[in-house]
């Protein structure tokens, strides 16, 4: 499988070189202060990467306020794709919060209570996440938080965060380019908290902005992209293993196989497979996976390629085929979000 020189195709088949280069560029450069960073070469820029120039001069990692994005890390987020929102006004966040709060209260009255037992007042907060975007062409992220204050306790008690969800677009220009005025593109939606709250918030957004939510499943092919890319990233401290979990569910006795590789060895393998700097091809990912399959087969005589890859996990992030991710490192947050945005967009289109 020769590495291709032409435009690389990402896991979704779409022309993908910009994002792959941005991801690879981010991987090569350690997070030092801005002055010491080197810019990607002109060769990379010349292939129509004008959209990336602002982010190159203001590298995403520096823009990301670690405190503001800390809420993202180390939580399991359930993924959805969202079609563009019609008539969304960034200045009306307070009004939206009020309306959503009223909607939730009304649904509870109808008997679609989310919590049995203690009476809860649900407080809604909407805020913009200015840092969570790839380029100036992306919309800023939008965070929705549901907190509760138990009626039983006094005003002094702390609000308890019940549920959070956030909309985001990281280099999602493929979508926003082609969309008429009055539409806001935030194709990726991530939630953490009870399913019932997700349903409530989702149905309000659907009614108000005429958009559509769909669970974002991650195919084994996309998972293999993720594990190959993430295995190649440099991490300063001792990282956790690069783990691939396979499942053979349809046997009479289902079998699960966890295949965990020492992160240094996995990175060493990927470094010899990935030949073109700043570019990752489908061929390279396939070779990487074939190497892992071959090593496994040599020992156990089992064809791992016949099993279903259901989960991948590295020191950077982990992802499950049901569309659940956990991001562990703020340094690589933009890269991970970019990949997920790409998947969300391909599900919409």
């Amino acid at each position, binding site marked *: 499988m020769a590495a291709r020189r032409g435009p690389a195709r990402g896991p979704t088949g779409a022309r993908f070189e910009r994002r792959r280069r941005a991801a690879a560029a981010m991987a090569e450069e350690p997070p030092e202060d801005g002055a010491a960073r080197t810019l990607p070469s002109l060769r990379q820029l010349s292939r129509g990467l004008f959209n990336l120039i602002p982010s190159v001069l203001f590298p995403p990692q520096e823009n990301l306020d670690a405190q503001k994005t800390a809420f993202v890390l180390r939580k399991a987020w359930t993924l959805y794709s969202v079609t563009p929102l019609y008539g969304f006004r960034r200045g009306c966040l307070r009004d939206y919060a009020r309306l959503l709060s009223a909607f939730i209260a009304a649904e509870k009255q109808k008997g679609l209570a989310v919590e049995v037992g203690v009476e809860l007042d649900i407080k809604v907060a909407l805020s913009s996440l200015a840092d969570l975007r790839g380029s100036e062409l992306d919309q800023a992220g939008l965070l929705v938080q549901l907190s509760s204050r138990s009626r039983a306790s006094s005003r002094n008690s702390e609000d308890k965060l019940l549920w959070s969800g956030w909309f985001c677009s990281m280099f999602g220009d493929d979508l926003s380019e082609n969309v008429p005025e009055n539409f806001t593109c935030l194709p990726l939606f991530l939630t953490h908290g009870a399913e019932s709250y997700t349903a409530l918030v989702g149905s309000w957004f659907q009614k108000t902005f005429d958009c559509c939510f769909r669970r974002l499943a991650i195919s084994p092919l996309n998972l293999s992209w993720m594990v190959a890319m993430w295995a190649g990233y440099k991490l300063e401290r001792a990282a956790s293993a690069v783990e691939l979990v396979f499942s053979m569910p349809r046997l009479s006795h289902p079998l699960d196989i966890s295949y965990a590789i*020492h992160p240094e*060895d996995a990175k060493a393998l990927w470094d010899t497979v990935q030949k073109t700097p700043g570019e990752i091809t489908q061929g390279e990912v396939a070779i990487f996976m074939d190497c892992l399959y071959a090593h496994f087969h040599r020992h156990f*005589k089992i*064809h791992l390629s016949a099993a279903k890859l259901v989960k991948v996990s590295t020191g950077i992030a982990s992802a499950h085929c049901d569309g659940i991710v956990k991001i562990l490192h703020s340094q690589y947050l933009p890269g991970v979000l970019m990949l997920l945005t790409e998947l969300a967009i391909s599900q919409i289109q």
Partner: protein
Amino acid sequence: MDETVAEYIRRTVLKMPRDEIKMMLQKWGFLSEAQLQTLNFHQQKDNISQEVVQLCEVNPLNSYFFLDNHIYQNKRMWSVYQMKKSGEEEEYFDIADFKKKFKGRIRSALKNVTITFKEYEDNAIWIRVAWGTPHKKPNQYKPSYVVYHSQTPYVFISASVLKSNLPLLCQALIVASNYRDIREMELRSHSLNSLKDIVFKRYSQNFQTYSPKPVQGWNVEAENADRRIVHENRSVKERIHRLNQESFGCGPQPKLEFAQYRLDTMFKSDPKMDVLDKKEPFRCLVKFSSPHLLESLKSLAPLGMADAPLSPLLTCITHKARNYFKIREKKESFVSP
């Protein structure tokens, strides 16, 4: 009756599923049939447990501590230990002596322990130990269980969370049974019976047999195969079936839930691929898990998901009596130390 014991019995009965309480109390064997008859199982669980406590107080025996044994039967993780004898003499096993020495050794190190014994028909001695500290009473909710078949050098231990007491437990066992040494085997499972099957070699072993023709009426079709396909690759299927039989044997496999392999072997690839060629090992940790691991592995080759014969790393599990392995490279084949 001690306050904590009464509480323990009450809480344990409450944990039982309602429709299984009667059966578990019967299995427990502590209350007589007549006593069980007096219990009303149709009332609130709270009341049932109170009545059980009251009945227990009447009994003179103290093996009530085995009540929790049946609840957690399949949730407990069992490890296998092998003891080594000092000499060749076959000593007569005296159970009373064993109990006395065991209790003595443990009590000499820890005052706050509850030790109870129970003997079963298959020559198994069950020992239940609830551990305390110099300042705290024994914790009845996290006991260690030991199963010892006195005619064998094997001991099965479910240590519970308090692993720091393991060395003392092991010491007490060798002292009580007149052995010299004890070591942990690399064999663990939730199913105690399967561990016994493996270690006592009670499964059907794989013998090399020569059969020139397939046995009559032998169904070579894999379970999930399409029933419309009858003659496809018949000889290949028969060959796979035969090789599988040789590796795994004909009878049912002991029930294990997982196997773990720590691989410290070299990464070898086709030179044409021009990939990793390091002189150091490619370090991996592989874990297989399944409700019935060995049957699952046995089904892989007939379904085309594995080659036949399956790797000896997997087929050796039963006769090597281990499911934890460390594999190093040695010339052309693998060794496990």
